[in-house]
């Protein structure tokens, strides 16, 4: 059997920065593929030792309660928290945004987060799957062409703290994309949309961080 089906990961031997994708559950292969296509060297992160060599991290869509439990059970949460506090660039989509938010609403009992992003995020903010939707979003930081965004039982950013900046809002004003220094979070899933601009935007942060550290 092929371990972790590496053939689907794209360029795992590329020269670019080394970007980890948290691979405990969810659509991590889709992120890995996009990052590989953009020239990153992709590492799937499931254990503490996987965290050491990465220049950036993507936390995929999936079920945040499951990622939280497994990340603590297998000891990957603490090293990730430490790296985030040291300035590791992180991009979280949907469940990933929940994982990096400082404050969570509508969590299950005992659910924790990695934190770092100065925002308040509400889980499943739109309701059940019947309320999941796709729409075009203006994201000025990524240029004039709107981003086609897919929301799947997604969270929203209910409050943006002083250190964070909104990147996109829905027509009703709810914030669905934010950044803060090296951290980026979206309520939606660019990894399944075919629009790579959010990943490019994030990789630029990773490359800048690598250059700054050199």
């Amino acid at each position, binding site marked *: *059997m092929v*371990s*972790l089906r590496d053939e689907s990961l794209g360029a795992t031997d590329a020269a670019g920065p080394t970007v980890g994708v948290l*691979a*405990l*559950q*969810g*659509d*991590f*292969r*889709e992120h890995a593929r996009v990052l590989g296509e953009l020239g990153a060297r992709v590492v799937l992160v*499931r254990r503490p030792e996987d965290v050491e060599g990465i220049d950036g991290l993507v936390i995929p*869509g*999936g*079920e945040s*309660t*499951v990622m939280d*439990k*497994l990340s603590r*059970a*297998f000891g990957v949460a603490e090293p990730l928290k430490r790296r985030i506090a040291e300035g590791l660039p992180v991009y979280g989509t*949907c*469940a990933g945004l929940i994982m990096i938010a400082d404050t969570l609403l*509508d*969590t*299950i009992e005992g659910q924790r987060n990695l934190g770092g992003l100065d925002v308040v995020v509400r*889980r*499943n903010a739109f*309701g*059940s*799957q*019947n*309320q*999941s*939707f*796709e*729409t*075009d*979003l*203006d994201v000025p930081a990524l240029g004039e062409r*709107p981003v086609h965004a*897919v*929301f*799947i*039982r997604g969270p929203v950013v209910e409050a943006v703290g002083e250190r964070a900046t909104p990147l996109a809002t*829905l*027509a009703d004003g709810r914030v669905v994309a934010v950044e803060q220094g090296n951290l980026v979070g979206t309520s939606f*899933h660019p990894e*399944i949309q075919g629009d790579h601009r959010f990943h490019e935007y994030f990789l630029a942060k990773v490359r800048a961080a690598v250059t700054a550290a050199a």
Partner: protein
Amino acid sequence: MSTSETGSSRVKRGLAEMLKGGVIMDVVTPEQARIAEDAGAVAVMALERVPADIRAQGGVARMSDPDLIEAIIAEVSIPVMAKARIGHFVEAQVLQALDVDYIDESEVLSPADYVNHIDKWGFTTPFVCGATNLGEALRRINEGAAMIRSKGEAGTGDVSEATKHIRKITSEINQLKSMTRDELYVAAKELQAPYELVLEVAETGKLPVVLFTAGGVATPADAAMMMQLGADGVFVGSGIFKSGNPEQRAAAIVKATTFYDDPKVVAEVSRGLGEAMVGINVGDLPAPHRLAERGW
């Protein structure tokens, strides 16, 4: 700002994408749903009787009581699925009205129509359907299924049929990948599936939707084997709550599904789980009681 669209193929298939690498657990009470969520289930299947009990009690098995489904939805924050009978589009309408997150058009219940499956395109709520081979999977996708699960033989605790079905589907996909264009026309005819879907599978080397495995998974090693055989995730029905220690077994199966390629983790989580469900060997089941043969 343009308009937003609910119930699109991308949105329906997208939820299944987010469930990948996870375990979906059958639950019959809100208490079990809570245990499942706490153990790390990625979603729960709300039903009145697990397949092992449907098998033991016999009779016609139908959609669950809306009160039960709503109580389970109220209890947990993860997605809740529920089953409709094959072809019973009104049960599916009811489940959509109850706001379940996924509808399983399931052979575990008694079929309501022996000719037609539900036309699933008209629903906002996505559907998952069972399949024993690639042709069956593609016919369901053609009818609008947004997720496929290999059927296995539900309620037995015998994983052999699940193995057979996931192997069959993946080997048929591999065969398509090596075919020339003219051979694919014949393959479509033989698979009794639309040519466009057959071509798509041949080109991409995978189903156009997420593929889980179901039916007879009872241990962490069973789950890890299904993942190694190419499943995107697993359904565990009777295997958890018909076992001696559901909390521990559920958490163990979740871990084994994530670390399916690491036998040390599978060994570690398999220790001291207590009694597994007793189970029935599929070979001992008389043919009329084999659920996987329902649906076509």
